[in-house]
């Protein structure tokens, strides 16, 4: 017999997609039975109270959580989000229900041994409910009491060699795509760069001194599977500068229908025979390809790296060999002044350990500028908007490049600097008056 009736939530136990309600009930049952004799450090019926309070929200159409900002682990300004239930008498098990963010490994590969150790810890010291993973990328521990925060952190750091992630005005836990670990498109080792920068900037990740949040994300190619271009203050997107590698025999095999196009992604419908003219040549945004006499030609100088032909014929076409990444800055969700995509600030940079150029000519000068000039709660992209792309280029020292704009300005209101104009701005009015009457 469940502790709370949950008639609305129970209706989410049918259908085909996995039911989170059934899953929480399963955890509630597991805690009630406690077959492993765990000494639960927070109430054993926490999951039942969680279902109870969620049912109440389904009934009321309103949340029953309050924010708490003081809770955290000593010396860290991020990694913990405080939560309190606004009906603690009815649901004492979730009266305190704080979240902890645990820094995920780059690429999100795991061994079962590691995951089980995480489960053991969180079952004993928390609700046993997680997010795999949160939006930014962390492993999320959902719900524990204030006294357990330090205990969880102590066990993570001492027994699991594992640190917390970021929140607040910090560097947020960086995240990356699967990259070269299992993708032929990746133009740099996303995991290596993600891990290196995460460790290099631990102080920035744990001890907030930025005007607002700051995100790094790493996409191995312009397909942008981790959406870095849309949601990271500094986005790293893999690119090649040389020629797309072509296997002409494989091209013929696509044309001849021996290999399904687009890696078989369209197999669920009969789209007719593969038509290389229509599906590849005709869709190339720069019209830099042709297929004649059984031979595919690409004018690589005109290619803009959109990935379409490579995606459509992955066995025939491969990214080039002179690889690195482009860097874009300033992306953010709409709050407050509207959404912003990342703006290209470095068209190409080599990605090689120890990544000195990336750190010393891009990341750190940008942070210094933003920390000094950024207003409270102003994202990098908003500072860029306020002070201009030119200002950012002065900071990084990268030369202005036509690649950095969609189009040149349509107004002529150039704020000329005095040293750009011959003779400067100091002029002699008396000399002028010799030739022009008052």
């Amino acid at each position: 017999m469940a502790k709370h009736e949950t008639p609305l939530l129970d209706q989410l136990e049918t259908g085909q997609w996995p039911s989170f309600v059934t899953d929480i009930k399963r955890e509630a049952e597991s805690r009630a039975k406690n077959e492993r004799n765990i000494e639960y450090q927070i109430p054993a019926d926490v999951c039942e109270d969680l279902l109870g309070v969620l049912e109440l929200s389904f009934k009321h159409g309103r949340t029953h959580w309050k924010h708490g900002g003081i809770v955290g682990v000593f010396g860290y300004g991020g990694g913990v989000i405080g939560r309190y239930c606004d009906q603690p008498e009815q649901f004492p098990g979730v009266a305190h229900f704080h979240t902890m963010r645990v820094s995920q490994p780059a690429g999100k590969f795991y061994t079962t041994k590691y995951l089980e150790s995480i489960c053991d810890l969180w079952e004993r010291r928390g609700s046993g409910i997680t997010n795999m993973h949160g939006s930014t990328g962390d492993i999320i521990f959902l719900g524990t009491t204030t006294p357990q925060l330090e205990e969880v952190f102590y066990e993570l750091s001492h027994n699991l060699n594992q640190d917390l992630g970021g929140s607040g005005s910090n560097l947020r836990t960086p995240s990356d795509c699967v990259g070269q670990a299992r993708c032929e498109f990746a133009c740099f080792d996303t995991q290596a760069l993600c891990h290196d920068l995460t460790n290099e900037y631990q102080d920035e990740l744990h001890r907030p001194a930025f005007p607002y949040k700051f995100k790094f994300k790493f996409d191995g190619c312009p397909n942008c599977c981790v959406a870095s271009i849309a949601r990271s203050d500094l986005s790293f997107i893999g690119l090649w500068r040389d020629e797309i590698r072509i296997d002409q025999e494989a091209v013929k095999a696509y044309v001849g229908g021996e290999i399904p196009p687009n890696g078989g992604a369209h197999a669920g419908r009969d789209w007719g025979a593969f038509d290389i003219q229509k599906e590849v040549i005709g869709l190339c945004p720069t019209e830099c390809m042709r297929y004649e006499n059984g031979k595919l030609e690409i004018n690589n100088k005109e290619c803009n790296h959109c990935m379409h032909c490579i995606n459509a014929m992955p066995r025939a076409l491969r990214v080039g060999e002179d690889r690195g990444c482009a860097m874009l800055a300033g992306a953010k969700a709409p709050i407050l002044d509207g959404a912003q995509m990342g703006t290209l600030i470095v068209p190409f940079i080599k990605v090689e350990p120890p990544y000195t150029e990336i750190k010393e000519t891009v990341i750190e000068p940008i942070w210094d500028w933003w920390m000094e000039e950024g207003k409270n709660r102003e994202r990098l992209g908003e500072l860029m908007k306020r002070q201009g792309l030119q200002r950012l280029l002065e900071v990084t020292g990268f030369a202005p490049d036509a690649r950095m704009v969609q189009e040149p300005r349509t107004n002529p209101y150039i704020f000329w600097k005095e040293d750009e104009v011959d003779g400067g701005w100091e002029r002699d009015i008396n000399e002028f008056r010799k030739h022009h009457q008052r």
Partner: protein
Amino acid sequence: MAFISSGYNPGKPMENRITDIGPRHFEEFYPPVIKNNKGKWLYHEILEPGVLVHVSETGDEVYTVRVGGCRLMSVSHIREICEIADKHCDGYLRFTTRNNIEFMVDSKDKVKPLVDDLMSRKQAGGCYKFPVGGTGAGITNIVHTQGWIHCHTPATDGSGTVKATLDVMFDDFRNMRLPAQVRISMACCLNMCGAVHCSDIAILGYHRKPPMLDHEYMDKMCEIPLAVAACPTAAIKPSKVKLADGSEVKSVEVRNERCMFCGNCYTMCPSMPLADDVGDGIVLMAGGKVSNRISAPKFSKVVVGFIPNEMPRWPTMTDTIKRIVEAYAAGARKYERVGDWAERIGWERFFEKCEIDFTHHLIDDFRDPAYFTWRQTTNFKF
């Protein structure tokens, strides 16, 4: 329930403290076939929905079986995932950015037993525990935020709206019949801690009522200057209010017409709650993408200004999403994303095809960039 110390000494928090160690190193977690072939992959192919093969220049192959996961996951569920990975995958697995779980094996004969095992596992109510799919030109897992399970400013639920939507769209998770992939994302308030603003279809929780003011408690619970400063549109100012008993207290005044319903004041000040059963609901957005393929990445556009919260299954919302997907499936060309399709046929045609009413709420009036979203040509359709 006896308190068991981890070894932490509250009196001396810095004693033996370990900090700044970061995440575990990714190489500890690579399965051998990944470790041996990293950077050497030649090509991939989707063999059936949810099953991929990647072929290396060494001749090695890795077969990946992708299954949908609730991002909200119990440790019992994770232990079951581990049991499966131990049984079939030598104890390795990974998660994707979109909350899918990927089981990898190093030869083709191991695929079918793994898929059969995964699809045979069901929850008590009949739901699949580990549905295989989410690849290619279909609908993959919906990324989402906390909602009512854990957040203090949501305008709707996260897990509930996602479960309702994925039940309706389940066939397209298991199939690849669409013109291109359709990425659906969900954020439970406009702060979008899950950035959904570049999704083919975005489900967004939205409040429509300014905060209530608990005047009697305002100055006791909150620091008024902080509440004032929290407002991004400067709609809050300090004020003095006379209570029913005649006493005067310090409080705040909200210029309601300037409120954008973000809840930032409630975060700083618990005496300014804004959640409301009638006021809160769903905004639907469409046509965004993050890929640079063929066309540039683009933002999602608001296509439905408001849908009420209809617990537990949000039928008006899921019907509308279904209509958009079906209209897109019928009308778009191969490789064309929702946004590319809408731009090709024109947004006026999009609303017609999707049977969605166009209302004034959908015309941008927020700050300068709004002007450039209005039609400035005679190239439109009747």
